C-alpha cells in the first residue's frame, strides 16, 4: 500500500476517464440499434446497483483492497484463490484494452506498423505511470480530463454546427419492444464499462475521506454514463443505424463526417486524443490494480518491483490473446462476459457480501448475547 491518499476530485476524475476509456471509441451496445441510449442508461442504473455492492464491502473493510478482504471473508485458502482470480482478471482485461487500443490505431492511422511496437510503447508509458504511483496517475488524470472534455465538447459543437445531426435517425424508439435493449444490457453494456467498476475496489482504500466515496462513485458513474449515452446517440443520429452497425469505430466515422467551411474537416485527431487518453487510463487502472493486488497477496514490500514482470505479461498477452481483430472482438463479446464478467463482477462480490453480512450479523448477535 502506498501512503498517498486520493481526494474526492481525483477519484472522480479516475472514474470518469476509466469509464469513458475505451467504451467511447468501440461500438458499444450497437446491437440495441437506435435505442442504444436506453441500453446505456439502463445499464448505468444496474451498474450503480452493482457498485453499491462493492461499496458495501468497502464499508466493512475501509482500509483494505478486494484481494485482502476476500481472504478475511472467505478464509485464507479460498480467499487467496479468489484474489489470484481477480489479479489475473485485471491483468487479462488490461491486455484486452491494450489490444483494443493497438488495433484501433493500426486500423486507421498506422497500417504498416506492427501491433507489438504500438502496444509496447503504450505499455511502457503505463508502466512508467504506475511505477510513479497512484498519485501521479491521479494528477495526470486531472490534467487530461480537461483536455478530453474540451475535445468532446469541441466535437459536439462541430457536429451540431455542421448540421449533420438528424434526430429522425433515432426513430422508431423501441421498435421491437424492450427485448433487444435488455438483451444488449445483459450481455454487453452492463459489464463494459459499468461492471468494470469492480477494479476500483482496489483503489477505494486510497481515499482520504471514506464517507464521501459513495457519493463520488455514483456521481462519477452517472456523469460518465450520460456522456457515453450522448456520444453513442450522436453516432446514431449522424450515421444512422445501418452504418453504425457496420462500423468498427463509429465515433471515428462520426468525426470524419464533420465538414465546416472547407477547412474544419478531417478531424480524426480529436478521435486520436480521446482514444489515447481513455486507453491510457483504462489500462493504467487495471494494471495498477493487478500490481498492488499481487504485491498485497505475496507480501511484496515495494510494488514497483512487480511492474516489469507484470507489464511484460500484459504486453505479450495483448498480442497472444487473438490472432485477428474479429477474433478479439468475438472473444470480448461472447466469451469474456459469460465466463469472466458475470462471475467476477456479479457473482463473487455478491457471495462475499452475503458471507460478510451473515458473519457480521451472527457475530453481532453473539456479542449481543
Amino acid at each position: 500500500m502506498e501512503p498517498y491518499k486520493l481526494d474526492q476530485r481525483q477519484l472522480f476524475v479516475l472514474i470518469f476517464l476509466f469509464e469513458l476509456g475505451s467504451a467511447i471509441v468501440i461500438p458499444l451496445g450497437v446491437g440495441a440499434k437506435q435505442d442504444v441510449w436506453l441500453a446505456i442508461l439502463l445499464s448505468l442504473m444496474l451498474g450503480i446497483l452493482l457498485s453499491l455492492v462493492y461499496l458495501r464491502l468497502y464499508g466493512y473493510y475501509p482500509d483494505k483492497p478486494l484481494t485482502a478482504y476476500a481472504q478475511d471473508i472467505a478464509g485464507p485458502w479460498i480467499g487467496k484463490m479468489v484474489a489470484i482470480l481477480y489479479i489475473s482478471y485485471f491483468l487479462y482485461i488490461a491486455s484486452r484494452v491494450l489490444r483494443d487500443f493497438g488495433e484501433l490505431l493500426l486500423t486507421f492511422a498506422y497500417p504498416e506498423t506492427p501491433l507489438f511496437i504500438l502496444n509496447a510503447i503504450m505499455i511502457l508509458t503505463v508502466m512508467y505511470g504506475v511505477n510513479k504511483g497512484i498519485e501521479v496517475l491521479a494528477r495526470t488524470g486531472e490534467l487530461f480530463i480537461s483536455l478530453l472534455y474540451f475535445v468532446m465538447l469541441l466535437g459536439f459543437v462541430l457536429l451540431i454546427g455542421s448540421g449533420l445531426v438528424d434526430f429522425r435517425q433515432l426513430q422508431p424508439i423501441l421498435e421491437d419492444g424492450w427485448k433487444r435493449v435488455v438483451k444488449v444490457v445483459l450481455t454487453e453494456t452492463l459489464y463494459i464499462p459499468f461492471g468494470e467498476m469492480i477494479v476500483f475496489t482496489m483503489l477505494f482504500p486510497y481515499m482520504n475521506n471514506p464517507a464521501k466515496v459513495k457519493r463520488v462513485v455514483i456521481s462519477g458513474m452517472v456523469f460518465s454514463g450520460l456522456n457515453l449515452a450522448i456520444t453513442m446517440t450522436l453516432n446514431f443520429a449522424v450515421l444512422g443505424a445501418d452504418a453504425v452497425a457496420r462500423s468498427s469505430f463509429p465515433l471515428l466515422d462520426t468525426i470524419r463526417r464533420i465538414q465546416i467551411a472547407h477547412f474544419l474537416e478531417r478531424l480524426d485527431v480529436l478521435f486520436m486524443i480521446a482514444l489515447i487518453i481513455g486507453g491510457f487510463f483504462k489500462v493504467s487502472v487495471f494494471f495498477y490494480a493487478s500490481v498492488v493486488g499481487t504485491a498485497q497477496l505475496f507480501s511484496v514490500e515495494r510494488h514497483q518491483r512487480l511492474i516489469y514482470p507484470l507489464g511484460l505479461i500484459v504486453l505479450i498477452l495483448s498480442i497472444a490473446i487473438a490472432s485477428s481483430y474479429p477474433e478479439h472482438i468475438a472473444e470480448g463479446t461472447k466469451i469474456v462476459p459469460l465466463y469472466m464478467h458475470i462471475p467476477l463482477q456479479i457473482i463473487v462480490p455478491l457471495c462475499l457480501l452475503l458471507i460478510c453480512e451473515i458473519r457480521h450479523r451472527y457475530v453481532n448477535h453473539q456479542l449481543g448475547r
Partner: protein
Amino acid sequence: MKGKICIVVLLLLCLTMLSGCWSKKELTDLAFVIAVGIDKTKEGQYVTTYQVVNPGNVAGAKQIGGGASGVPISIFISTGDNLFEASRKASKKMSRLLYFAHTNLVVIGEGMAREGIGGLLDVLERSNQFRTTAKVIIAHHHSAEEVLKVLTPIDKISANQIIKTLEFSERTWGQTINTDVWKMIHDIASSGKHPVASGVDLIGSVEKGQRLTNVQVSEPDARLNLDDLALFKDDKLVSWVSGEAARGVLWVLDKIKQTGVTIEWNGKKEAVGYKVIRTKTEVVPHLKHGKPSISIDIRAEGDIAEAPVPIDLADVKQVFALEKMIQHNIKKEVLEAVKKAQQEKIDVFGFGDAVYRSYPEEWKKMENKWHEHFFPQLPVTVTVDAFIRRTGLRNKPYQFGR
C-alpha cells in the same frame, strides 16, 4: 558516471521512439489522387481512372507564363477485377505511390451505373485513406474516363471544378444534388430509400478537351456541365430526371437552399422572378386502415428578384396573388417529381424510411412490397406556404403606370 550513461541511453531510446517514421512517405513520393473514375469493360473488368494532381503546374505562378508549363492534372488508367487490384496495378505506370486521402470526387460512368454499382463502394468506406465525404457524380452519356480527362479553365483541376459547381449549383439553383460516397452507401443499404445523384455531361469533343489548348481559349472546346439527376433503383441507374422535376426531387428532400422560381403574370409566361432565400420541407407519413399516405409540407421564404412586367408590388393584394402563384408553381414541380418517381417505382424521397420511423410495426409487413406495390400508388398531398418578404430596392417596376 552511471547517471550519465543512463541519460545517454534514454536519449537514444527517445531518438527511436519519438521520430515516428515507421512507414514514412515523402511528399515527393506521393501521387495525390484528386478524383477517381470507375467504368466497366465489356468483359466485366473495372477500369479505374485516376486524376492525379501535377503539383508543379497547379499553383498560379507558372500558369501566367502560358505555353511552357504543362497541364495541371495527369490521368492514369488501370484495369482490374476490383478497385483495389486496379489501384495497385497502376503502380506499373507511375513513379509515385497513389495517395487517396485527398480524393474528393468519385465519377461513375453511366454504363457502369446502369449495370449496377453493387458492392463496389465498399473499398471506399473500408480504406483508412479514402474519405467517404468525397462527392459522387455520374458521367452522363460518357464514361468516367472521358469526363476526368477534360481540362477546365477557371479551376485548373477539373475535379475541383466539378465539386464546386455541384456545391454552388445546389445552393443557388437546386436542380443538382451534392451527394457523397457515404450518402450513396447509406441509400443503397437502406430498404426505404433509393439513391439519387447528379450527372455531369461533356459538351464538345474529348479529343480537344484533354489538350492544353482547351483552356487557352475563352470558350473551351469541351466543357463539363452538370445536368440531370440520376435516379437509382437500389444500386442500378434506372432513369434521369431533368429541369423542374429534378428540382421537385430536391424540394422533397429538403435540399433546396436558394433557388429561383418564375411566375406567370397576366398571361405572360415566366414573368416575375422570385428568389427563394429559405425553405423547410417536412415529410409526414400517415397510416389509415393499414394504407400509408404521405403529406409534404413546404415552407418557402424569399424576395422578388425581377419584375419585368407592369405589376404594382406596393399593393399587398398583388403580392398575395403572387404568393399563390408561387405556391402553385412549387407544388407543380414537386408533384411532377413524385409522379415521375412513382412511375419508375423509385423511392428516392425516402418515403419508406419515413413510414418505418413512424410505424415500425406496419413497416415490417410493407417492407418487401414497398417499392413494387405501395410506393407507386402512394397518395401524396403537397401543401406549400410561400412568402414574399421583400421586393428588393424598388417597389413598382419602371414600366408600371405607363
